[in-house]
């Protein structure tokens, strides 16, 4: 596929995920939970995880308000991390960050949808919007206190 074609597909994906977010909602008794907020933009995300005894993320849900990029990124995240081990999810944080900031393909990513994050690197002022949920994920998995921010 041409570069322009890939970009168009990624753009459509981001719009679609922002309008029809997957795994939107909350969990009643999550094993892990964290919040992120970028007060300047008004973007907010709450992430809920159920991590089973085997260390696998059985369920991921999120609630969010904000721009299309922050919503789409959270929807892509929740879709991607379900079924991953905790360590794999933390590794995915690093990979997502690399895609968002460099725009390059990252080895180990075979998720065609998640690759849409590479498009965001084209808009340096918006990387913080897409990053918010990922930093929230790391906060949740570390069991750390406090609201995270990427501003």
């Amino acid at each position: 596929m041409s570069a322009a074609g890939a970009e168009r597909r990624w753009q459509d994906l981001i719009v679609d995920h922002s309008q029809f977010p997957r795994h939107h909602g909350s969990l009643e008794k999550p094993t892990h939970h964290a919040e992120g907020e970028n007060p300047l933009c008004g973007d907010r995300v709450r992430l809920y995880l159920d991590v089973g005894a085997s260390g696998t993320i059985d369920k991921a849900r999120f609630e969010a308000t904000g721009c299309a990029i922050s919503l789409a990124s959270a929807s892509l995240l929740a879709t991607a991390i379900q079924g991953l081990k905790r360590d794999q999810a933390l590794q995915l944080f690093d990979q997502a960050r690399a895609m968002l900031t460099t725009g390059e393909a990252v080895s180990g990513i075979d998720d065609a949808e998640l690759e849409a994050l590479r498009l965001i690197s084209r808009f340096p002022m918006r990387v913080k919007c897409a990053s918010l949920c990922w930093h929230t994920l790391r906060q949740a998995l570390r069991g750390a206190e406090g609201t995270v921010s990427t501003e």
Partner: protein
Amino acid sequence: MSNVAKHLEGGFDVERVRADFPILQRTVHNKPLAYFDTAASAQRPLAVIEATDRFYRQHNANIHRGVHTLSQEATEAYEGARDRVASFINAPSRDELVFTRGTTESINLVAQAYLRPRLEPGDQILISHMEHHSNIVPWQILCEQTGAELKVIPINERGELDMEAFAGLLNERVRLLGIVHVSNALGTINPVAEICRAAHALDIPVLVDGAQAMPHQSVDVQALGCDFYCFSGHKMYGPTGIGGLWAPLETLNDMDPYQGGGEMIKTVTFEETVYNDPPGKFEAGTPNIAGGVGLGAAVDYLASLGMDNIAGYESDLLAYATEKLSSIDGLRIVGTAARKAGVISFMLGDIHPNDIGTIIDHYGVAIRTGHHCAMPAIRHFGLPATCRASLGIYNTRHEVDVLHDALLAAGRMFN
């Protein structure tokens, strides 16, 4: 009516003005630039670019006290700019115009050098709900330092001052009223002369934040009747890092110095320092000389166009843009005051302003998205952010049409 005839309406030829701004020749994402972010920072005409360039190429030296030729030329250029800027706002005396880094520094200067020594715990500082952060935070800092209280004049759903509430907030404990002349977030033009009269009836001095008024209309500090007028060079087609504070000489004489250093003194010994007379008293250190020279060129440029012509042209364009944008389904204008200048804040459906800004940038259209450094004003409307298209002397009806079409495309993307 032909395009040419339209441009010449009211004695203002926008195509000639556009030719004075080299940056308007560039493209963004292969589209002609449509710059609607003048309220954040205006573009610079050749006259300003060349004045600062000429200063550095031919006259650069430190000002005042130097006896060599370059120092004398630099002093004449800088002080000549002060003459012209003072005259541009109809200041009674050139010595009443203090050059600062901009509106923010001007307000901080008044807060610390004028008001701080005059405040006691329980005194009040009055501002409005539509102030820029630069006319909020310096007073908050001052309140923390002195135990004074910050009081806020509410605004209505159109983004106009609640004048009844304002009258009720005036009392003998108010030591200063700080009010914006033209709101950068909503476009509201406040009735400053009327406000000054009401405040002066109780001997309350008034500081006016004129950052957004200066580029759009003629400003006469004597007719306004205010006590302090603050403005920024870069909002009025001049350089960044230069601006002004106007206050009557009597007031400036009674004020404490702001920063200590060179230029603000007459004599210094280790026992005693005698301060300089205004405006030097408030201009410690080597100032932004080229910036001052550039600001002088900016007011010459604006004066050559005529501020009344500018106000007329922009008012017509604002009416056109308001009507054009209002025709878009789901577009809501935030700030609909009866008297407005140069700014249209809006929401398009529930699309986040940052998404709009990113999308229409690809059509060459530059707007600002966010809280516009006026968080309380924007939150008054229950929003974290808005889109803001602000107008300058170089914007055209055609550019408004481009903005309109880009917004339609953004709306379609989310539909």
